[in-house]
């Protein structure tokens, strides 16, 4: 086991160094740093999405494809409230609140109907929910170029000679803080212990009296909050368009795959690496165009690497 971890770490460090050297060779360090930082910001968004997915998947067995849609609904609400000149903090909070309510609605009313089905079916059902939200959101806010700006966009900090906006710092900081916070929560609180137990074996946990409903509700809440925050930040940093934010869940899944839908720290590293590689690819004239493929290619490779030597024989678990 330990040897395997060592191999993985060594391989990761080598691959990352190689990629950065290859792409950044001969470029001024300032340019490299600029792309690196912007990559970290995008990567943090992937990681945040991935963390939201994994927290929920571990506790409830649902890979929630509607996370992106919930985020989109939240971000659009925030934009609307901002248009109505409502005090900004309320607008921002509304994004989180809306996503949270959407997540809880599904978690409490629909998810229990599918509690005993296999993971693929659960994931497919959330897709239905995602479509409903996306349809409604696109119906309410017809296609129009919109943008969402936070006051933190205008404040910059100089770091190692580079100007970094505070929004990017917030996104990056939050993703790290979340990983540490959730890790501590799972490790030191009673609910955290129960969540780990559920993730380990749902049936057994039910038998020994873990309050499944309560633990699941907390997981849905947590993932809803993360989805709302991610949607808001995505709308600010990248694009405020319901369809785009909804299907941001696909690269988030890529980040989640890097952590085997299990390890939050790996999701974070995976997400950040994807963002950085994607951003650095801009430097290569050859691969510039296919840059957004990076998350998918990385996730597919990581998945294959994890599965190497595995043999599929027995039914049941995935």
């Amino acid at each position, binding site marked *: 086991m330990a040897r395997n971890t060592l191999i993985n770490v060594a391989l990761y460090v080598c691959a990352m160094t190689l990629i950065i050297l290859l792409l950044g060779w001969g470029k001024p360090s300032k340019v490299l740093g600029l792309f690196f930082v912007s990559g970290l910001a995008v990567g943090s968004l992937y990681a945040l999405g991935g963390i939201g997915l994994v927290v929920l998947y571990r506790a409830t067995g649902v890979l929630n494809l509607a996370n992106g849609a919930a985020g989109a609904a939240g971000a659009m609400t925030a934009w609307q409230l901002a248009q109505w000149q409502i005090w900004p903090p309320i607008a921002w909070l509304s994004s989180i609140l809306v996503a949270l309510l959407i997540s809880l609605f599904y978690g409490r009313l629909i998810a229990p109907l599918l509690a005993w089905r296999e993971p*693929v079916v659960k994931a497919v059902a959330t897709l239905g*929910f995602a*479509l409903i939200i996306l349809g409604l959101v696109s119906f309410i806010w017809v296609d129009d170029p919109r943008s969402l700006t936070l006051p933190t966009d205008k404040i910059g900090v100089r770091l190692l000679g580079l100007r970094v906006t505070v929004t990017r710092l917030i996104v990056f900081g939050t993703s790290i803080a979340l990983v540490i916070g959730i890790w501590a929560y799972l490790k030191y609180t009673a609910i955290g212990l129960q969540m780990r137990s559920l993730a380990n074996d749902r049936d057994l946990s039910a038998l020994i009296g873990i309050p499944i409903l309560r633990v699941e509700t907390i997981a849905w809440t947590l993932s809803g909050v993360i989805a709302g925050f991610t949607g808001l930040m995505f709308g600010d940093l990248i694009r405020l368009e319901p369809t785009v934010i909804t299907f941001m869940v696909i690269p988030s899944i890529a980040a989640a795959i890097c952590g085997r839908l299990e390890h939050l720290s790996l999701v974070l590293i995976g997400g950040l690496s994807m963002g950085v590689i994607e951003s650095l690819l801009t430097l290569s004239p050859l691969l510039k165009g296919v840059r957004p493929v990076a998350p*998918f290619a990385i996730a*597919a490779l990581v998945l*294959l690497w994890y599965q190497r030597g595995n043999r599929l024989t027995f039914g049941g678990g995935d």
Partner: protein
Amino acid sequence: MNTHLFHVTRSGAAGLLFAAFACLIVPLVVGSFWLSVFTSTACFALAAAGTAFMYARLGMVSLTQVGLMGVGGWVMLRLNYAYGLPFEVNLILASLITMIFGMILALPALRLRGLYLALVTLMAAGGLEIIFATFQFPNGGGGFWGVETGRTPFMARPIVAVSDAAYLRYTVCVTTFGFLLIEMARRLNPGRAWAMIRRSEAAAMAAGINVTLYKTIAFALAGLIGGLAGGLLAGSLGLLDGGTFRASESIMVFALTVVGGARYWLGVVIAAALFRIVPALLNNWGVDADLSFVIFGAGLLHAVITAPNGIAGQVLDVVTKKAAKPTPSIDPSQISAPTVQTAKTSDSTIEIDGIKVQFGGVLALNNVSACMAEPISGIIGPNGAGKTTLMNVFSGFVASKSGSISVDGFDLGSLSPHQRSEWGLRRSFQKEEISEDLTVAENVRVQIDTTRQSAADKKAEVARALAYVGMTTKARTSGADLNTFERRLTDIAKCIVGAPKLIMLDEPAGGLSIQETNALGDLILGIHAQTGAHVLLIDHDVDLIARVCSQTLVIDFGVPIAFGPTHAVLSDPKVKAAYLGTEEFAS
């Protein structure tokens, strides 16, 4: 079975009628807008058929189908503008190239299943989406790599179908051909193999199915179909746009296939109609087409929660009022095994030599050795003793760290699981692994699909095996309609076809009544005389073991604690202690 290859079911007849209607009547009565909508519906129906059979027949979720369609369309357009070959040549090339793409996609799929498989295909769809955006669709322009926008280019169409109406007919015909191709594959070897893979990959391998091969065939077929659909769509529109082939569209097509009902042609047609016709209708009525998402989503939730067979399943339930006339269940007392013969007919031996298996920190089998020469040998031991693990080593599912297993001096170690089956290894599983998608005869037939025999011989052999276990009357019954005893009997029939050398039965009497167990015991006793094969039997029913097995191996905590003639082993105090817990009870 081959005789059923051209059998037209009632649902099939309805499908052909529907195709004829779409081909002959529809083009006469609709305007040019709807001609184009229906043509694209037919293309997407073809593509969705690829997703549907993967999901319904193999249980695999593939989320790349629309991406594959894009590959087909891309190749089609490029070929069209670059070389001016006839339409059909381009279409065939486009489908073949897409088929190769599908096979490349199968590479990761061989090691993945369930959610992970769905995710890796989703990653592929995401990748393709961006590749389309980079290496754009040509829409005219010179040479193979030319791209031109802003003019309506010339797209060659088949000579027989230049007008829009004729092209719709052409598309419907090709789509019907695609549906029939899938149905044909389903009725032949691939279909039987897929049904077993869907049931359990282990059972499929034990039945001699090369799982890698048949999964690759499935992906290749889905690719071919997708490429065909993409090529047809390109021919209809003359220009394509990357936005048509987004990953989200692939997900949508899969979702709608579930809504429609992936098992039925009607379900696939409903899926395509929802995908293409509903948005067009909403547009026509001046309603925001985004609302179609709401309809799709609600439909999907509804289907997933309440209608596992989709809308088509519900429709068919209403139309066909279950003509239920089940054949009577098999009565154990009616089974007359041929005169019981346990005399050895061959001198072959099974040698288990120093088998050692470790799972993490658990030593599941430690140095298990035995040399079995009797026709029927038993393996007993408390739960978790490692009996099934030993069988899994025989099957090649679990690797032994050391030691070897050989039969008549032939070492099984070098063979893959399905090769062991071809060699003559048969096994049944604790949980009877009968595919519910196949009939009893087909379930047995799977086992000898790879042998070199004429179809008639195979058929006769299946009939012989079914007669032996007394299941002749059930030959045409679907696996889903069998009771436990009948499933166990089918398992036995499966084990005795195709010149078996070693038959392993893992708790064959599990869940059976006393009469049923007795009948099963008779059958097991007759197997050696019938086939000349060794039989290895695991069971907890000591009476059955005592009656059937001449010698018995006892395992406890992965260690063999006794081996020898059954009656001697069963009266061994060590064995009693292992079974009953403490020495005190062992008097």
